[in-house]
């Protein structure tokens, strides 16, 4: 899928992945790639500025943890992040339904 389209929805993808539990950056990238059956292949570096922006907005928090012998910054969804995820997911569903209707009419 086009990287611009993924980039425009990166916040929602990250919030949705974190809703399944705390993760560090590398795990998040892998989770999004596997969750989309390999459809969403991110430029991996893009997740960090997005995560830091979500953190500065109070949607996620982070802390250093040693995971598999390596020190990693682990991100965790906050209640404000959960609410943002629900709102963005609802908007996405409305958009997808609209798109499907229009695209369906064309076929």
């Amino acid at each position, binding site marked *: 899928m086009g990287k611009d389209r993924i980039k425009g929805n990166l916040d929602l993808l990250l919030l949705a992945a974190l809703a399944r539990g705390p993760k*560090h*950056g*590398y795990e998040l990238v892998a989770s999004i790639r596997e969750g989309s059956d390999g459809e969403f292949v991110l*430029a*991996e*570096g*893009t997740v*960090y*500025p997005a995560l*830091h*922006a979500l953190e*500065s907005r*109070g949607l996620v928090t982070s802390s250093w943890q040693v995971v598999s012998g*390596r*020190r*990693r*910054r682990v991100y965790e969804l906050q209640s404000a992040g959960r609410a943002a995820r629900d709102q963005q997911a609802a908007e996405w569903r409305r958009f997808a339904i609209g798109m499907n209707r229009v695209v369906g009419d064309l076929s």
Partner: protein
Amino acid sequence: MTSDRIDAYLDDLLDRLEGAPSERRRILAEVEAHLRDSAEAFLHRGLDADTAQSAAIAAFGDAPMFAKASNRRRPAQVLAACVRAAAQLGAYGFAAIGAATLLARALTLVTSTQWVYGAPAGYPFTAAQCAHWLAVQPGANTCGTAAALESSDDSFLLILATAILGLMIAGMILGGMRLAHGRRGRAMSRLPGNVIAAIGATAFLGAGLALLAAGAVQGRNRVAWGHGVLYADGAVALIFGLVFLGRFLLTIRPVPLAAG
């Protein structure tokens, strides 16, 4: 030499990242953990160590693009940092005004009130002005001395009060911002120290030279009041400017030119 590519990438990235040291250290540690995880995964897929590191870096994205995205700040953060810097520089400015006022007053002890605050030679005092100044300055025996004493009292009190008020306002802005950020539990945005030092050095050195030049011109032409005040203001501005210049020179560090 298995760690060379990731180390070189991190060195390049560190050179490009902006922000507080803690922020840059955190980003660097996160990126290193990510790249080493990724390289390990490529290694398990059968790539040799060097190619695995190259593949990890390629999947991550190049350092300039990553640094550009990381260095991007929200407009509110930029505005807050600019307001904070303006309040800091304003506080130094008002402190300089206060110090210059005290210096001008001290200068009257070693020169004269006339030299520091007085009217230019041949100033056409009106009879009403003379009567007023001699009435409010009964210790003066000439119109020119009375005018200089009155000018001294007025400018000393007015400018000192302005400096104190300005310092209080700048302090309230900085204190208010610190309080607001403390409540939100977030780090306060700030401009890099060397940027503030560069602005301070430019502003104070420029003002100092301009004031000294104005004092010299007025001393020769005798067209305006109080050319000694201009020397005092200029000297204090130059001192503040030199302190900022020293701080700037201590905080900048030359970086090597990129090869090729």
